[in-house]
């Protein structure tokens, strides 16, 4: 009887102490504004140098979507017009530092295939494998002063789409490019990025 009592007491103590003990830190999120945002006001003109694309399926050209973003969507974010870069025109004009900001880069795609079980057919009792694609896009982007040639901002942004339908390359790319451009805008505008810190209890 005594032994049982001791065991019960020790279990109670363990639970009580356990409930009192806590982890030493809390994770907290703090919104931060990037220090390295571009001083857009400094630049009078913006020119888009068409993005080089690599390793895309031959039947799909992502060029028009990319151009549309840089020539239509980006100006709305910057609140400044962005024109297509024309080297001859720019060479003839006398530019000074801060006059023209070039926006360009390259974008490459890597497709990895894998076999997965078809869910619909599995419900009917059939084990059929189907091929799906994993699309990974890597986008190197730069914002470059046209006179000094210095990059005022450059980043590599990556994103992936793990169950891409090989018959819908336009949808796969649009989905990825939307994520990438959102990340890009947040980065260079320094919009409400979140960072994590340890708050000690």
């Amino acid at each position, binding site marked *: 009887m005594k032994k049982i009592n001791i065991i019960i007491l020790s279990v109670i103590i363990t639970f009580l102490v356990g409930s009192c003990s806590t982890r030493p830190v809390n994770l907290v999120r703090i919104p931060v504004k990037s220090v390295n945002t571009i001083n857009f006001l400094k630049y009078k003109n913006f020119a888009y140098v068409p993005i080089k694309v690599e390793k895309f399926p031959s039947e799909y050209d992502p060029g028009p979507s990319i151009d549309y973003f840089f020539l239509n969507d980006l100006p709305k974010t910057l609140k400044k017009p962005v024109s297509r870069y024309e080297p001859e025109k720019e060479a003839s004009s006398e530019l000074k530092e801060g006059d023209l900001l070039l926006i360009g880069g390259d974008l490459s795609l890597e497709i990895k295939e894998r076999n997965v079980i078809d869910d619909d057919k599995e419900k009917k009792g059939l084990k059929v494998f189907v091929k799906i694609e994993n699309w990974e896009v890597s986008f190197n982007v730069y914002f470059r002063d046209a006179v000094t040639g210095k990059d005022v901002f450059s980043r590599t942004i990556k994103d992936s789409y793990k169950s891409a339908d090989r018959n819908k390359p336009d949808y796969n790319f649009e989905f990825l490019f939307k994520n990438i451009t959102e990340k890009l805008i947040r980065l260079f505008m320094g919009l409400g990025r979140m*960072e994590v810190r340890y708050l000690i209890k």
Partner: protein
Amino acid sequence: MKQITLLIVAAFLLAGCSATRVETEYKFGNKLAKRGLWKEAHYRWKRALRTGQNTAAIHNNIAISLEFQNKLEEAKKEYEEALKLSPGNEYIKRNLSRLKRRMNPGMEPDAEERKDLKRMKKKEMGKRK
């Protein structure tokens, strides 16, 4: 006799636990910070410092509140002060390295921070559900 001894031990442990629950300025500051009231939390921690609670934890937490207010140089000093008081504290070291990354253009979040961010997002999603 053994039972009495065990009961006394249990009573002491419980008393110890309840003592830690006493609301100090410091802990109140932590509560405010978790609710996002960083400026108020900062004020509480500063008060705790003035009352003689000069600990690494307070300096660390003050540094976070300064980061929240975009006072990065001051925050760095506070983290460094915290590390002086607790040189081996891994959490303070990580906070300081993240601040340095924030101050250094071009550096991306490290893998550990990405994990922490995912963990926090999951937690928040869970709360919403």
